[in-house]
């Protein structure tokens, strides 16, 4: 398949019935309500590893939104990675699969068409071990700020001319 020239994918990863774990898909749903220049596509997934490879192939640019839990992080902290400084977020790896970096290297090795630009945004979360559709109160409070951060990043990095 030919590369979708100019196409941008914003991919929210997480489980939307596992409280804060669903921060990525929730951000995507809210971003979708806004008006963006043409050529942008929004998707959500709860998968990692090779599954992600299938979702991002043939796009020029991908922005991945995921959750992360670190020992020192504060709820709502937003981290920006690219593959060179990235290790692992919650869903970009998988016990049954390969991690994201390996998947990208595999794609390059077999000459699969993958995005030239990969941006990863991870949001520090609190609760991802309990089923529920709502965010934790700590993350809910920070949510408007997080959405704004992500929105600004989208414009500054993906649509610099429009921003």
């Amino acid at each position, binding site marked *: 398949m030919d590369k979708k020239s100019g196409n941008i994918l914003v991919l929210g990863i997480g*489980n*939307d*019935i*596992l409280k804060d774990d669903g921060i990525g898909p929730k951000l995507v749903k809210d971003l979708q309500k806004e008006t963006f220049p043409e050529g942008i596509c929004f998707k959500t*997934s*709860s*998968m*990692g*590893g*090779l*599954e992600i*490879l*299938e979702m991002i192939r043939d796009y020029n640019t991908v922005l991945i939104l995921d959750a*992360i*839990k*670190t*020992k*020192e992080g504060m709820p709502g902290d*937003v*981290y*920006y*990675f690219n593959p060179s*400084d990235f*290790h*692992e*977020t*919650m*869903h970009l*790896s*998988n*016990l*049954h*699969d*390969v*991690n994201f970096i*390996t998947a990208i*290297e*595999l*794609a390059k*090795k*077999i*000459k*699969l068409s993958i995005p030239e630009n990969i941006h990863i945004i991870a949001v520090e979360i609190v609760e*991802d*071990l*309990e*089923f*529920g559709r709502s965010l934790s109160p700590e993350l809910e409070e920070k949510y408007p700020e997080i959405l704004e*951060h992500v929105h600004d*990043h989208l414009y500054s990095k993906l649509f610099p001319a429009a921003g």
Partner: protein
Amino acid sequence: MKTITIDPITRLEGHGKIEIFLNDEGEVDNVYFQVPELRGFEKFCEGRPVEELPSIVTKICGVCPGCHHMASGKAVDAVFGVDPSPTAKKLRELFYMAHFVHSHIAHFYALAAPDFVVGPTASPAERNILGVINKVGIEIGTEVIKQRRLAQEIQALLGGHQTHVVMNIPGGVKKGLTEEERDDIVKKAEGFIEFSKFSMKLFKDVVLGNKDYVDLILNGPYSLKLHSMGLVDKNNKVNFYDGSVRVVDTDGKQLYRYTPKDYMDYVEERVEPWTYLKFPYLKKLGWKGFVDGQESGVYQATPLSRLNASDGMATPIAQQEYDYMFSTLGGKPVHATLAMHWARLVELIYSAEHCYELATDPDITGKELRAPIEKIVGEGVGIVEAQRGTLTHHYWTDDKGMVRKVNLIVGTTNNHAAICMSLKKAAQGLIKKGIPATEGTLNMIEMAFRAYDPCFSCATHSLPGQMRMVVNFYNSKGELIRSIGR
């Protein structure tokens, strides 16, 4: 804005832990395996219409959503006391074979092959799917990605979505198959058969062709004499979607053969204070602790157990490979944990062949997709074989079909006790006094764990990382003396 680099071992939360306790002689005394717990699924389901559950359960696991969808669909059928039409059952099974094809390919090439093709003590930088491809060729890597994608296309076509499947409704399926769609699946299934045969040949060349590997499988610290569980059809052949649960003892003699609705008469779950994940065991034999042998209540539900518990495979090439495997390994049952990889490839061939059989079945394009719903029984059990073990969904509803209670026994949970025992046995066999445990040692302990293709994302929760595992060593006073992370 900040850019940071995270060391997954020292800074990320939520890893699995293997705790190894040494005795005064510096040898392994005991091993505990722990993973984070997932809470509240039952509460989340309570009060919802039961017919919503097949779609909801696809979200409790990012690895085997199709398995939960199938078990749930069958449990919901039972709640409504309805038997789907032959076409509906075959469409579900066709979806399920594609699910097995893509999952078993992933396990073999991404998780099993690195240990054998690259080597069990090779550098972790090379011991991965990239290392496998470096050894066997780029074209094989291309085929792995291609065949998985084609299997997922079948799942997306039949299931409405490859992951969040919306196929099953009470009494049947939402959507049928056109002749054109069927023809496309037939072509894909032909490719699956060829690729699964190739994968088996690769296993034979690389593993069986290497005396050290055969010795590791048969004589390494990886064998447990446990009872075997698996779903079988009316001829006692392996079946992933439907049938009776059969359990054979450590000598291969049938212990039980029961219908799914009776599972609570045969399986009970034990709680241990050091982990949230339960330990299912055979109720009639009772819990005798983490011990193997004929008297133990511990069982395995794995690809190898399924083959042990059956009288054969229902498709011709898989049957040949079944016979060859057991004859090579000294007859049934086989208790070598690492032989699970071989059994998984026999199952891959079966899945591919059965995918073809179903796609060429005249019923598959039938128009009768749903049986009418006429009553609410109020309770239902659905059992399928997930890739990593027997999967049970049990629902109770009120007289309006609203969920009152849910019980799940997921594939990996069946094997929880066996996994702990396998880890202990491997650790005891590989860690010796005065010999420091290396990364290679850790990997060889993990091989005992990895053979089960464990998935804790529904047993507990998705670990935030690829095998992020910390191994802690404690001395006989219980003091932490060493920690290896990866």
